[in-house]
């Protein structure tokens, strides 16, 4: 029987090892799997490479994981946002590495990784500092740079609903990086607001088919990052 349900966020992240590459879903607060991230802080794996669009806010969620010095490298498009001080501080002190990737290139690299495409060409970043050191090539009358697919050992994803097969649906703009990260990670770990019976999600409306998901755990009332930040909360 296929049953990807796991009893807790702690159990779901238990086998993440030091040095792992982890894709973390979310764009800002929307879609951020904050309970899974906090479980990873409790778990303590170090020297992680994290792929996320941002670097978190305040002192909770992704920012707290970074502040706890578990992350040695960030791959992201926008490492500073409102209330984001943790990453900038560590970066200025040379304590964390940054690979800056344009947002669309980041998304396409993740999709490529999940789709078995090792590399592709894109017009994004041509003639800018972010194309420096990259192979470029002309197709037609335009120059493109070559970018590599990205994969990860784990993905931490927040979904609205899941079934035991791992089929997922998301909530509004919380979908963002979720579907492509599920494809690109070796083990995809999902915190879902609700786990429903197999068959409850219409096959026409499934966004992430279960094949891309390995573990599902229920977090029925996830914390809101913005609320925690406003309250000045920190984790742990």
């Amino acid at each position: 029987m296929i049953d990807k349900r796991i009893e807790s966020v702690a159990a779901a992240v238990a086998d993440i090892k030091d040095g792992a590459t982890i894709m973390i879903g979310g764009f800002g607060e929307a879609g951020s799997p904050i309970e899974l991230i906090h479980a990873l802080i409790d778990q303590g794996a170090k020297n992680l490479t994290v792929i996320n669009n941002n670097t978190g806010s305040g002192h909770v969620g992704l920012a707290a994981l970074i502040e706890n010095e578990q992350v040695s490298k960030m791959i992201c498009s926008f490492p500073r946002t409102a209330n984001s001080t943790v990453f900038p501080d560590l970066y200025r002190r040379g304590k964390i590495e940054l690979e800056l990737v344009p947002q669309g290139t980041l998304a396409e690299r993740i999709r490529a990784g999940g789709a078995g495409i090792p590399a592709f060409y894109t017009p994004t970043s041509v003639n800018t500092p972010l194309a420096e050191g990259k192979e470029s090539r002309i197709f037609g009358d335009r120059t493109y740079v070559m970018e590599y697919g990205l994969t990860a050992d784990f993905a931490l994803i927040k979904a609205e609903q899941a079934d035991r097969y791992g089929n997922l649906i998301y909530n509004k703009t919380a979908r963002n990086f979720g579907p492509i990260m599920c494809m690109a990670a070796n083990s995809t770990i999902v915190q879902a607001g609700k786990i429903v019976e197999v068959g409850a999600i219409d096959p026409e409306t499934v966004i992430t088919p279960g094949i891309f998901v390995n573990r599902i755990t229920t977090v029925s009332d996830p914390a809101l990052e913005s609320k925690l930040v406003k309250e000045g909360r920190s984790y742990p």
Partner: protein
Amino acid sequence: MNTKTEALKGWTREQMAQRAALDIPDGAYVNLGIGIPEMAAQFVPAGREVIYHTENGLLGMGPPPAVGEEITELINAGKKSITAIPGAAYFHHADSFAMIRGQHIDICILGAMQVSCEGDLANWSTGAADAIPAVGGAMDLVAGVKTIFVITQHTTKHGDPKIVKSCSYPLTGKGVVSRIFTNLAVIDVTPEGLVLKELAPGISFDYVQERTEAPLILKGNK
């Protein structure tokens, strides 16, 4: 070489499919080719839950519908009417082949014209000058799926070996097949060569070797 009736020796088509089905583990995501491979779905042992992928855009393919209940727009890669199980998902062709190319499908079972002792597979074209070439998703499947099984009669209708030293037909993929189920035997493709894993009832090692162009290694004997 041999007569046509020889093909009836050993396992029947159903038994070949049944034997292959034994090697589909619980929880596997599986893509089945047209012909004998697709029959394997009926024979998966009780207690195992297997999810079938059809590359035209469905994960969770169910058995064929009852006569009169066919839905024109619910078909499989062989363009036959199918059903969808509860928990199925539809997606477009690029996503479907992302599943394949991205190594998300666990097992694919395909037919073969020829398989070489190194696991090369030829199953899309005889290379004949007047043939209309048609490849479909075969090359994508062998390049992307984690484990490739082949089900095939051991010899051609004319009695010629289909398991060969080197494929004479154009390849579908190089070094891709890991296990071959024929009417006579189950054979593993290993770095040492073809290992005979199992014989059909009443079939001897020598009988199989005579009908196999490449040398077979007897299990436990190497």
